[in-house]
């Protein structure tokens, strides 16, 4: 999947300029940059939610898995009913809930879930569509450290099994290093990609916070 953005504006303010991205299957790309730089806007463009930009997007993927900043579950439906919106395969849903550590929670109404649980359900929903592209918008925002660590471990296991291209938006360098194969750094006003480098680490190293911190320091992120 390739996207070329010549310019993206909000009223008179230009937020993105001359941004070119190529995404590959089975590759996890982290978009790193300060808050408000336009990372989420870029994700919305990749998802086809925002078409109001100058430039072109070649082949919008058929199946898109999107984990929004807020889980965006339907609070009046149970966990199972929320997941049934995207797939009819009951066995697949049950296996996914099991994988997310939510076995036995399928009948809980979503407005009774904690933020951490809701995020896991949202991740399950995104994976259940068998996405061609998986978009994760600050998946650990508003979570405390232990919960974020728990979700990160779960994500590492889940997204590595996917055949799709994955894009993670974050402003946390440690999250970017731990999860991705490639980091794109967005900076400037209007924002553009200023650095693009690969992350070569074993799965075991990604689970070691000290190793991840070392890489962050080495890369001067």
């Amino acid at each position, binding site marked *: 999947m390739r996207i070329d953005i010549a310019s993206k504006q909000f009223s008179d303010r230009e937020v993105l300029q001359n941004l070119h991205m190529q995404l590959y299957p089975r590759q996890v790309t982290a978009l790193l940059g300060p808050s408000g730089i336009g990372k989420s806007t870029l994700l919305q463009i990749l*998802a*086809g939610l925002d078409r109001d930009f100058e430039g072109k997007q070649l082949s919008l993927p058929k199946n898109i898995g999107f984990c*929004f900043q807020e889980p965006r579950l*339907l*609070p*009046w439906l149970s966990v199972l*009913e929320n997941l049934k*919106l995207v797939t009819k395969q009951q066995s697949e849903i049950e296996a996914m809930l099991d994988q997310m550590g939510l076995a036995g929670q399928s009948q809980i109404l*979503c*407005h009774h879930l904690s933020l951490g649980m809701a995020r896991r359900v949202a991740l399950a929903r995104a994976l259940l569509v068998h996405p061609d592209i998986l978009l994760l918008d600050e998946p650990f925002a508003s979570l405390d450290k232990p919960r974020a660590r728990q979700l990160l471990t779960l994500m590492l296991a889940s997204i590595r099994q996917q055949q799709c291209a994955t894009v993670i938006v974050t402003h946390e360098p440690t999250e970017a290093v731990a999860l991705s194969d490639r980091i794109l750094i967005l900076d400037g006003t209007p924002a553009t990609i200023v650095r693009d480098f690969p992350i070569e680490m074993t799965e075991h190293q990604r689970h070691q916070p000290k190793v991840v911190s070392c890489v962050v320091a080495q890369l001067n992120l």
Partner: protein
Amino acid sequence: MIPKTYLAQHKLQLISVSCMIACWAFLSIWLQSTSLPTPVLVWDAFSRELSSGELLHHCMWTMYRVVIAFVLAMSIGVALGLIFGLNIRCNQFFDVWLITLLNMPALVIIILCYLWIGLSEVSAITAVALNKIPNITVVVREGTRALDQKLMQMAQVFRLPMRLILWRIILPQLTPYFVASARSGLALIWKIVLVVELLGRSNGVGFQLHLAFQMFDVPSILVYSLTFIGFIWLVELVVIKPWDRRANEWRGQHAY
């Protein structure tokens, strides 16, 4: 036999109703006027009308008109509200029509319906429904405009079919608006039905009120109006309140 738990829960309301009846009794005894009969006199008239079968007969006719007009007004009003709320151009085109109908006096619509369609059941029900449709349309339209756009984006990304979007995302968010429309609709519709019956029908509570007015029969006026208020209270308690409670269960909670 009223359960003790019910009495405990509704103690304040029961005291309030008792006070109202006490005030009425006090005023009627003090004034000694035929314009304000005592509760006992009204009770006697109630027993008389009930045993003759007249009360039930006329209340049922009014209830029949209320139900038909209510279902008609709700169905058309909700459909139009959804269309206007979701389609900006459609809303812009029909906004003037809506405001015109909204501001048309109920009496004008009733008279015009009787003149155009004739003194029939169809014109009576059409007049009542036409009076209520604009209000329901406006409430549902505003509800549709207030839909959570983040959930609509979610539906767009996951390419949910329109049927699921409507039943699972839009309608649950609009249910409180439906309840509000139903509640205000019922209250307004039965009052308009009385006017319609008074002007052009030969049965129903409105017709009976007209007769009682001509005979200066205040106890009968109170009997018929209080009985019908009782019916509406019953609908409120049995249908609308439980629906309202269910619809608002998730409200006030954090919608992720």
